[in-house]
């Protein structure tokens, strides 16, 4: 019983302490005190050079190397398919959506884009010209394998 009470007290102590901590020192992406309005950062520019980027791992959905401002993707139409559909690529020379996009969840191949793959921007995104908000320690699998073989 005593143990439980001490544990509870310890928890309360930790919680109140962290809440009372200096708001400026909180690790957030706000870059400012919680109780103050922070100036909104400028809207970043988008990479628009049409250069395909390396994929960090094989399953990574490729990023979009161009502007997609106001692209309409809804029940009525899908702007991306204007260039990336099976039939459009001859003219557009854009990469076609892969065969996995035709698969339903049972692994059946459909005649056209599967509904669960219809909303392109759920996985594919264009890239902003900004600095990383937080440091990233991601290491490519090739680098890890190389390190291991050296050992």
């Amino acid at each position, binding site marked *: 019983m005593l143990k439980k009470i001490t544990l509870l007290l310890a928890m309360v102590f930790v919680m109140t302490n962290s809440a009372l901590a200096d708001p400026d020192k909180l690790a957030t992406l706000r870059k400012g005190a919680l109780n103050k309005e922070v100036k909104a950062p400028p809207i970043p520019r988008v990479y628009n*050079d*049409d250069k395909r980027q390396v994929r960090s791992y094989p399953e990574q959905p490729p990023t979009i190397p161009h*502007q997609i*401002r*106001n692209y309409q993707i809804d029940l*009525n*139409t899908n*702007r991306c*398919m204007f260039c990336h559909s099976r039939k459009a690529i001859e003219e557009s020379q854009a990469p076609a959506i892969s065969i996995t996009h035709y698969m339903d969840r049972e692994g059946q191949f459909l005649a056209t884009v599967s509904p669960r793959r219809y909303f392109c921007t759920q996985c594919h995104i264009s890239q902003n010209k900004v600095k990383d908000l937080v440091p990233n320690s991601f290491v490519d699998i090739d680098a890890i394998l190389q390190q291991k073989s050296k050992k």
Partner: protein
Amino acid sequence: MSKLFSLLLRIYRALRRPSVHFSLGFLTIGGFIAGVMFWGAFNTALELTNTETFCISCHEMEDNVFAELKTTIHYSNRSGVRATCPDCHVPHEWTNKIARKMAATKELYGKVFGTINTKEKFEAKRLDLAKHEWARFKANNSLECRNCHEFDNMDFTRQSPRAAKFHSTSLASGKKTCIDCHKGIAHKLPNMKGIKGL
């Protein structure tokens, strides 16, 4: 029938007879001034119907197409140039403008009878309405686009590689016109099933 004929004949004779009370100077100069005033009034009225304020005085326009335009680059952008309704939907050249204005009288009929006075009715008719505009742009080689976006003045080196590629090939050869690729840039697209390319 003969009554109408005799009336026309009387008017014709009155017009042919020289004036009895008015001097030649009054008739020519007065006629000229009246003509200028009439023409000025006509043009002022015409230009009044060619403003954004006039277009969105109907809720059909304000709540649907105008609301959609607001988020696009033609309405809000860094340089402050704005294309409003008539810039794209009314030809700038006089003859075509009058022809379009006459065709637009059908819209008055639509307004009176409430053809698209609800969101649902508008959405149901959206494809038809869009098709009219696409056909118009296709027929006049996207003239209203080119009033600002002059092909000869385009600097391909300032365009993205993709844009430069298509503009210097398909557009340059005249195989395609602006609207072929740039559908739905100012308003939301209707259900595009079966429309070429989408």
